[in-house]
């Protein structure tokens, strides 16, 4: 599980963590039931305050992404599958929109774009 934070951006660190963990869950890299590092362990590894990690986890818990189990730790909560699917669809949609825009710039036709998509789909 990779979490990379930056000190120099404006965004508060706890928000960066919240975003990244949300993305990991949406992308499927973190699945239901997976264990998350303890707030103290995370703080130590990232060299930040435990208050920051605590805050991040609290927000994630509030939004239903993770669950704290007393005595055992923190785990990825069972996700609302429909919601999750919808979020994932959105990601695909966003990326396709990017591709479309990029294609338009070099005047690629829809047909050529679809051809590309077919090839890639079969390759990957």
């Amino acid at each position: 599980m990779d979490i990379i934070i930056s000190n120099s951006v404006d965004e508060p660190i706890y928000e960066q963590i919240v975003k990244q963990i949300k993305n990991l869950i949406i992308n499927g890299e973190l699945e239901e039931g997976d264990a998350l590092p303890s707030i103290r362990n995370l703080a130590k590894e990232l060299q930040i305050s435990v208050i920051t990690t605590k805050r991040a986890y609290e927000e994630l818990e509030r939004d239903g992404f993770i669950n704290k189990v007393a005595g055992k730790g923190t785990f990825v909560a069972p996700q609302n599958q429909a919601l999750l699917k919808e979020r994932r669809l959105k990601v695909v949609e966003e990326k396709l929109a990017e591709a479309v825009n990029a294609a338009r710039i070099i005047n690629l036709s829809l047909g050529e774009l679809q051809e590309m998509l077919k090839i890639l789909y079969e390759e990957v």
Partner: protein
Amino acid sequence: MSAILEVDNLRKEYRDFNLNVSFSLERGYLMGFIGPNGAGKSTTIKLIMNLLKKDSGAIKVFGLDNVKNEIEIKQRIGFVYDQNYYYDELTVEEMKGIISRFYADWDDELYRSYLKIFDLDPRKKIKELSKGMQMKFSLIMALSHHAELIIMDEPTSGLDPIVRRELLQILSEILQNENKGILLSTHITSDLDKIADYITFINQGRIVESTTRDFLLENYGVVRGKKELLMQTDKGLLIGVKENEFGFEALVKDKARAREIFGDKIIIDKPTLEDIMYYQIDGKVV
């Protein structure tokens, strides 16, 4: 659970300096105690350790009065001071032999494991150790009896950056245990940038600020802009204003407000703890 350390209206008067402070620390956190030289950091710590007598106020450690229950409290405190006050003629092992017998919970195995981690030869005389190793020795003495509260008074002064980082790593490890608390006083604020949960800023014997480091970093900012903007500001917004040939710079406690007032005409940077200390010490508020 009560706070691990509570200082309430603690007062100490000297001829040309007086101290009046209140703050508290919960278990599981590290509090950075910052301030310029002579601000009262060492005085406060000595008062907690009962090395100085308070004039009035209350100091509670583990919920107990620090004078009435002095011995019981000291059993559970590990201390590291700014200089080596141990007997430098003795070897590490000899010194440990003396110190360890005062602590009921001394853990010799723990002590030996720390010796290994720090690569400290117990047969060496204390005076033969480098300054960094002497501090590590102090730290080992403080940690080897399962102390719950670790009090450190400028432990990193005179140490090179590498040793300082090592120390912070170790403190990080200690805090994995959420029952412990650490009070670390320093004027080298960069040490705290990576590890402090709470910051208490003291200046001229008074607490200027005592809050989470996150709060400070999210709300404070260093503002830079043209000098003419100084006319437009809200009173009390800009702290420690410094003007130079080309503009001004100042600290703001509420950077959202500053952004509101000045819009795009100023640059707001994230402050370091040193900035927060620096601009408030001079005190020119506009």
